[in-house]
């Protein structure tokens, strides 16, 4: 950054809020709207699943496939990770960079274990012949749960990228907004998972 633009930046910071909207706040707002579109996507997949869940085509159904204990463990991990993500934001608001990065790391590790368990579950099912092409029920199952898993995976990559940025830039308005946004995303995925847990697993087994 050259001196003149540095000066301009300071100038800008002193008068921010008057002449143009707060960029960081606007980006967070946009992310909320993005989340609404994601709700629509998940909503479509949920609706599909509900319509097709009895169409097992003579193949295995929910009760034959799901292991509730494993799923409860996954759910517990994801809920905890949402909590640690909240702790990360708290640390950030107190200006504690190390604690922030630390809690994000814990969150990411919990998320990674969650993904590992999911991959394991899928592999197990595929091994037993319950593949995506076996029945409409299974197509809908893999798509719904897999989309959630894909979101979590993307969140993980993003979180790691953010931890690197935090360690080099520290807590600035920009990194602050990024942390806020990813924590929104993470809590959102948690909520979606609760629906998955209820609609797919609990209602499937009972």
């Amino acid at each position, binding site marked *: *950054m050259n001196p*003149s*633009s540095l000066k*301009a*930046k300071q*100038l*800008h910071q002193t*008068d921010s809020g008057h*002449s*143009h*909207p707060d960029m960081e706040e*606007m*980006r967070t*707002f*946009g992310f909320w*709207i*993005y989340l*609404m*579109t*994601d709700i*629509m*996507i998940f909503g*479509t*997949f949920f609706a*599909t699943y509900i*319509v*097709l869940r009895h*169409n*097992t*085509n003579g193949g295995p159904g929910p009760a034959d496939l799901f292991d509730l204990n494993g799923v409860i463990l996954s759910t517990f991990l994801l809920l905890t990770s949402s909590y640690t993500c909240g702790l990360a934001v708290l640390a950030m608001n107190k200006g504690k960079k190390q604690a922030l990065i630390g809690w994000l790391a814990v969150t990411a590790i919990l998320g990674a274990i969650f993904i590992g368990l999911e991959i394991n579950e899928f592999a197990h099912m595929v091994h037993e012949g319950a593949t*995506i*092409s*076996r*029945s*409409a*029920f299974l*197509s*809908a199952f*893999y*798509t719904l749960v897999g989309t959630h898993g894909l979101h979590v995976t993307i969140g993980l*990559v*993003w979180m790691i*990228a*953010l931890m*690197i*940025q935090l360690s080099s*830039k520290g807590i600035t308005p*920009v990194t602050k907004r*990024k942390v806020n946004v990813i924590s929104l995303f993470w809590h959102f995925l948690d909520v979606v998972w609760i629906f998955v847990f209820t609609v797919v697993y609990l209602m499937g087994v009972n």
Partner: protein
Amino acid sequence: MFDQIKEFASGFFVTGDPLIYGADVSILLVTAAIIFTLTYFKKWRWLWREWLTSVDHKKIGIMYILAAFLMMFRGGVDALLMRAQLAIPGADFLQPDHYNEVFTTHGVIMILFMAMPFMFGLFNIIVPLQIGARDVAYPILNSLSFWLFFAGAMLFNLSFVIGGSPDAGWLAYPPYSELMYNPGVGQDFYIWGIQISGIGSLMTGINFLVTILKMRAPGMKLMKMPLFPWSVLSSCIAIIFSFPILTATLALLFLDRYAGAHFFTLDGGGNPMMYINLIWMWGHPEVYIIVLPAFGIFSEIVSTFSRKKLFGYQSMVYAMIIISVLSFLVWAHHFFTMGSGAGVNTFFALSTMLIAIPTGVKVFNWLFTMFRGRITVKTPMLWTIGFIPCFIVGGLTGVLLSVAPADFQFHNSYFLIAHFHQVIIGGVIFGYFAGLYYWWPKMFGFTLNEHIGKWAFWFWNIGFYACFMPQYVLGLMGMTRRVVSYGWDKGWWPLNFVSTIGAALMGIAFVLQVWQIIHGVKHYRKNLDTTGDPWDGRTLEWSIPSPAPHYNFAVLPQVEELDDWWEKKQRGVHKQLNNIAEEKLEPIHMPKNSGMPIIMAGCWFLAGFGFVFHWLWLTIPGLAGVAICMLAHSFNYDTDYYIPVKEIKETEAALRKVTIS
């Protein structure tokens, strides 16, 4: 070895049809010509810096509109091919399978790759100017949206010469679009072309919603905002709720075809009817997404050229919002005949008819605005006036179609074809033309030749009625849509012949418009818009020079009233605004150019192409490229800069031909 290559090529490239060889040759020639010209005049750097990586919303808008015109040409040629085939009974100019491809690509291109980008182009150019903003909320995302649209459109168009075109209709109903009945790659081109550009559209929806909600000039309350941004807002709300459904639905169809899933197949427990529900939950709002902004444009033009405040401003706003909500509740009128039962059909018939009420309100408001106004009929106004009768007839036939029992008769007939072309051409396309003529001077700094414009208008209109009015009758006589040919004994041919002549007249009209633009560029010096306000306009975009400087407003306007610029002109205070004094200027915060969007869209294109041909060796690097682009963007903190006061001063002085103290 050579034989292997030959075998591959004969499956890869579409062969056998002289039309397609012609296209191959012309694509190669045009590409070579472009590369040669750019290299010869050493314009590559200029192209990259000024256009391809630009995040200026006005330039992005111009690129959208240029692309839309190219696509209108392609879709129009498709239309003429079909009409040529249907002109005379028993013609075998197009074979049935080719005819299927032509109506499918025509529909997809016209709606998704012509109307949508045309609309987004107008959003981009005008919305920030009308709300007194310097940019959109997310400039880089905006550029990414454009390039995703472009990548998707190119991918889709490629199917014409590589692999083969889709042929399952513009909405690709299963089971016909399933692998079992449609094993080629055409349907996969359809899925990925639309998917990639659809993500771009969704992001544009988010971008403009936030822009309008958050970036209005100081003092511009929502109820002081011009109607065009209102129409954009309602259209964006519909985009945000409907495009994710499209994304999800195409993903499911893709999984059926690619991974052997059973969402919509006839076997394995799948349910094709579910696709039809889902696709129309997007498809119906989609038609309102494209027509609402046209309503906004007409509102602006009617009040400017009648020299009057728009009649019933508030009712216009509510009408648009109601339409965008209702558009989600009517989707099932597209399959009244598919056995949903009387109760369901009644609900959807009534909700469909309800939409006629707010729409009628709008038409009356436009008429009342003109009533006792001082009307001048320049081309933008001409299109607006031409739109009204066309839209009234289209709307009435729509109400006829919404009567469920009647639909059992009209369903899938030429009556339907005539109806939706009437609302889409008469409402959407006429509206965008009106907007293009209206804002052309703001975009380029010169006005277009009115004389040629009027000829084009009359050719479009006479051609339109000649083409589509006979089709209502044909529909009642029993001619169904998507038929490739019919016999002499049906008695359909005179009307079909007239219809084809009408289509040709519209083709001529399009050529006239292209000529009008070329003519305008050639003689632009004679038609310079030196005032920045050639129509004596009412809204903020007319308060700045034409074409607008890249930061739009040297000093952000302070808005007090609806039609603020007009009111300021009435009070004579606008002159002071033109005298931008140095002390009011501050350095302007602007986004830097970015190469990320075009590179990322290129990666999507490769990934999509790989998916179409099941080439994971291409898909995986493509998707990896997408991820790398995102990460690179996340790590880039150097995205903006400040325009120094001195530069603003010089730019303003040059544009306004004054010196600034």
